[in-house]
């Protein structure tokens, strides 16, 4: 088991390295000069040089690449004798923990350093992401929970009551839910529940998790604002989960071991929810993980329409301003989320199915 975990983590790190390399070189070929952008309208060649030096834009691409790798990696290598070397570790750059030194090279352990935003007055990217990511996380977890709970229950029920009017009804809405683009459903949901039905629901059309009060209470948590975006975001995974668990359940219900369970004299409830459901879950888990990961990566449209200050909105803003460190940092974060979820899913499979666990 431990060996398997180590193997999975090693594969994950390999993936992250690949993503980092790809992202780094993609942004190298983008036609923009970040140093110029930071100065905006000012014309000061000395300042320009300083900026280039500070961010390493004056170095060769290979040097810049290694520098970035060093910044992002948990373990980094530095030249501690030559102050002009590009790997020289400026004191205070990160909160590092020195591991050991071999001749002039120091090896350092630290948290990944994602550099600073070009435009937000040099605000560290880590700080930006740690403000926005949890907000998205709350939204994603809420909507996936909503989708899992109702998706599996409705999927199982439609499988049991196959071909009845309720089955047809739910299937119709799940097909509709799958085919609605999220920018459209967001607007519909916002309009319907927060405008037309506002008197009943008392919900706002837009709003983020943390709001600033007009009456001087400062920032406060507004959970009410979570409902509509989570609902909107959950519609598609919900529809997919309903259909998938229905199909998977139908297949399992025709299996011999379900007949065996009935022949034992078990009640229909136990047969369905104990014997059949566990067997039907594997494909559902695959879909849930995929959707959850992509929800965490930011649901751009939904966040924009509901003015939800999450990572999706942050990425779009950063792209508009060519704020490379933020974009690259966000991409790395999202890639890590995917890797972690994949590992978790592999272990979930094993938890559900002993045939995977024991091989």
């Amino acid at each position: 088991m431990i060996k398997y975990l180590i193997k999975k983590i090693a594969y994950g790190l390999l993936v992250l390295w690949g993503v980092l390399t790809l992202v780094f070189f993609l942004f190298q070929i983008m036609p923009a000069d970040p140093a110029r952008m930071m100065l905006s309208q000012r014309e000061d060649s000395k300042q320009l040089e300083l900026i280039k030096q500070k961010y390493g834009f004056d170095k060769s691409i290979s040097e810049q690449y290694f520098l970035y790798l060093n910044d992002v990696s948990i373990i980094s290598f530095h030249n501690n004798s030559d102050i002009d070397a590009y790997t020289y570790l400026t004191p205070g750059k990160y909160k590092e923990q020195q591991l050991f030194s071999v001749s002039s090279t120091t090896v350092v352990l630290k948290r990944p350093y994602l550099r600073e935003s070009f435009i937000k007055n040099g605000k560290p990217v880590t700080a930006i992401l740690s403000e926005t990511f949890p907000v998205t996380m709350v939204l994603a977890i809420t909507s996936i929970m909503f989708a899992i709970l109702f998706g599996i229950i409705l999927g199982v029920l439609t499988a049991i009551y196959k071909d009845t009017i309720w089955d047809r009804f739910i299937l119709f809405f799940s097909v509709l839910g799958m085919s609605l683009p999220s920018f459209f459903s967001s607007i519909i949901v916002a309009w319907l529940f927060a405008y037309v039905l506002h008197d009943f629901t008392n919900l706002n059309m837009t709003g983020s998790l943390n709001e600033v009060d007009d009456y001087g209470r400062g920032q406060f948590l507004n959970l009410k604002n979570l409902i509509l975006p989570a609902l909107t975001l959950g519609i598609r995974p919900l529809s997919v989960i309903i259909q998938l668990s229905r199909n998977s359940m139908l297949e399992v219900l025709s299996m011999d071991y379900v007949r065996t369970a009935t022949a034992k004299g078990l009640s229909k409830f136990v047969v369905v929810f104990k014997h059949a459901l566990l067997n039907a879950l594997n494909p559902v888990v695959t879909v849930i993980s995929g959707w959850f990961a992509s929800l965490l990566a930011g649901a751009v449209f939904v966040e924009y329409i509901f003015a939800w200050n999450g990572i999706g909105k942050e990425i779009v803003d950063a792209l508009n301003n060519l704020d490379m460190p933020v974009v690259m940092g966000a991409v790395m974060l999202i890639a890590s989320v995917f890797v972690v979820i994949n590992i978790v899913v592999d272990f979930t499979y094993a938890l559900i199915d002993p045939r995977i666990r024991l091989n």
Partner: protein
Amino acid sequence: MGNTLLEFKNLVTEFRTEGTSVKAVKGISFTLNRGETIGIVGESGSGKSVTSLSAMRLIPNPPGEITGGEIIFHQKDGTATDLLKISEEEMRVFRGNDIAMIFQEPMTSLNPVFTCGNQVVEAIMLHQKLNKKQAKELTIKLFEEVQLPDPERIFRTYPHQISGGQKQRVMIAMAMSCQPSVLIADEPTTALDVTVQKTILQLMQKLQTERDMGIMFITHDLGVIAELADKVVVMYKGDIVEQGNVWDIFSNPQHPYTKGLLACRPPLDKRYTFLPTVSDFMKTDENGKIIENNISVEEFTKDLAIPLSERENKHKELYSKEPILQIKNLKTYFPIRNGFFGGISEYVRAVDNITFDVYPGETLGLVGESGCGKTTTGRTIIRLEEPTEGEMIYKGKDIAKMNTKELREFRKEVQIIFQDPYSSLNPRMTIGNAIMEPMQVHSILDNDEQRKKRVEDLLTRVNLDPSHFYRYPHEFSGGQRQRIGIARALAVNPKFIICDESVSALDVSVQAQVLNLLNELKEEFGLTYIFISHDLSVVKYMSDRMVVMQAGQIEEMGDADQIYNQPGTEYTKKLINAIPEGKLEDIKRHLERKGVKVG
């Protein structure tokens, strides 16, 4: 009536699909007594499984529905209940508790996500007032009783970790767990090796005598129940055509269908020019009415036997030729990869150093239990698996070293007919196209029109209708599909056919038809066969020489008759002893053991 256990009175079960209704069981009546075993025999589609599922009220609804009759269950205290009239809740009390069932497919009948032990414990705790610990103790005791090795370990294992025979024992333990008075066994041994079948049958016999149960044993093969049953019910197309005690049915069958079923098993002591089938004893007219031939089994088979001298002459000629295929020290290993970069840590030695020759025009039988490497051998010969080592010389060329062009030519000459007629045909392709495809690949004949003509000829040759060209596989029965498989193999004019368990999934009566067809085609086209099967009786009947395999190696090889008459190894003896022959002497012995005088 004190002895009556389960009474079926005019049971009717129908299946409805889109407006039409088919009666799977057409008003049958029979009685199961306490301590009695009834064998219910018939081909697939005869309604025997539907009958047993009806008794458990397990008919899938829709489309199935029990539309008439009564099934009366008599409890020990004398109360009689009509199982068809009580509610689902009341029925659950009977299921598993008074009436238990074991199914055909042990591989899929246990839930893969729970341990074997848990599944039995669940059944016990459902019907008996025992706590978890007591239930566990009882389960382990039951596992001992069904002769599972190391019951404590089996309790903790998951179904995929044990063999098919062991799974069936777990199923039996589960069925036994609440001391049922009726045990319904729906083809419990059909999916198992003959050797395993024998041990399961012995176990059921033992349990029945100990516990005084009534057993309903459903099978398509009369031979299987000969030594187990007291009574036999023969079903044909939803009706009971004959019922009586086992001795009468075997010694003096009245109905032509019963005669057909008795005669179609390949005989072990002689060879026939063709195997009798059910249609030799009866025909049905367009209304489904049975027309009898009024001929007894003895009369019919009298002139069919091939004299020994004829066989000897044929062999003399056969073995004077050069071998068409020489297998020398063949090894096929399957690597197990589990290292970090997919490194190979171990090998499964599926075929481990075997050597044999095949002569043109002969049928070479390959026999052994599942997992002995016989199928891998067949697959390696046509390069569906790559050999690890060794030579396979076909007409002077090593198959393993053929280039693409030679391999193409080789595959035209050597064809394979697979085991499962259900999954070896593409469900999205009409059978005409399926048969035509290999001709197109090998550019046989000039255009598709000629090929279509040939496909129609082939369909006629394998006793199917040429108009079936545009039909899809799901419209055919198992036997018909296997004939389609044969037609597909014949399409490229092969010289050499490998039959890989080609009749194992079929009912005995259909098996006889397919075996006859294979033998006719062999004569007609001068074919050479490698005939692979786990059933020694079939291999012995078909082959000139046979190879007995065990654990990837050859156990014994030689003339089929000689191996059968004088088996050289313990393993071969075990295989031969396990064949359910349904001989009258055996039935007599079995009945006398129970204290019934016959003959």
